């Protein structure tokens, strides 16, 4: 009987030690509210056709995890853009795409949608930085970058944005 108890303890101790942190994580997850939301990124290159863009998105405040990236609305940028897969489950991402074709968007166009996992109730603040935007010759073009949050792809006043342009 004594031996049986000893064996049980030998088995139970490592199991408890291993499972305790996982259980703590699980309970934290349950406690913390988790929701998913897309962030739509728009770029306006004015009258000049947009052939390439690169921007960086990160959370200025709040807890987010990037869970997916999809392309834009214009056929030239429909395909998923380039990004570092290490950005997934991270709170920072650099996204870029180019198109060498002739059918290029002008004006304001949605270039990418980033799917986020938001932890907690607080609405995150995002920092969006345009690294570059270019025309079909590979020359830089002035462009304005902004984002919208939520399912609705039209203008939203609730989105908080900090915008900068790298020269």
């Amino acid at each position: 009987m004594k031996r049986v108890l000893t064996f049980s303890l030998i088995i139970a101790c490592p199991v408890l030690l291993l499972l305790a942190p996982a259980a703590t994580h699980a309970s934290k997850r349950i406690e913390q509210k988790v929701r998913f939301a897309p962030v739509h990124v728009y770029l306006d290159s004015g009258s000049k056709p947009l052939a390439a863009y690169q921007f960086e998105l990160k959370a200025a405040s709040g807890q987010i995890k990037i869970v997916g990236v999809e392309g834009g609305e214009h056929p030239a940028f429909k395909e998923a853009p380039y990004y570092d897969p290490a950005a997934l489950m991270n709170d920072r991402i650099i996204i870029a795409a180019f198109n060498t074709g002739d059918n290029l968007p002008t004006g304001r166009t949605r270039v990418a949608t980033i799917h986020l996992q938001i932890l907690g109730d607080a609405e995150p603040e995002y920092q969006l930085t345009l690294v570059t935007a270019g025309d079909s010759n590979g020359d830089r073009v002035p462009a304005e970058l902004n984002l919208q949050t939520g399912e609705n792809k039209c203008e939203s006043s609730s989105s908080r944005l900090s915008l900068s342009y790298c020269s």
Partner: protein
Amino acid sequence: MTEHDKQFDNVEPHVSPRFRKDLRVLCEPPGAVPQQVDKTITDLAKACLRERKHGTPRRLIVPMRWAAVAAAAVIVLGATLYTTVTHDTPHSAFRIPQSIAPGRADIDSNGRVDILDALRLARHIESRGQAQMQWDFNGDGLVDRKDVDAVAFAAVRLDKGV
């Protein structure tokens, strides 16, 4: 007690000595056990009990081994679960090309690697211009779309900064 019951109380006096003797013969075990045999059996039983009490019975060795195996299996399983559950790593559809030295991918020589470098290289390849072998970033002897991808990935790498 009634008169009727009393008749059963003194049964003994009515049994004859001969009948008693015959009964005893019938009830005794056939053949008496010799004292030496009895002692040997008792000693063996005592020794067996003593061994059970102080020695390590063989029956317990097997469960002990199995318990060790089970404990090891549980530890391995637990460690595997712990690492997969708590440290889940993202999966990517991309196969990132091997990293390029930053200077090499700066096609437009503006001092930094960005998507415009990839665009310029792509346009150069499409126009069938003379490709420089220094743009063969993946080292396959060709300057093609794979090298463009390599430049684009170099531009979006998180560890390079903006």
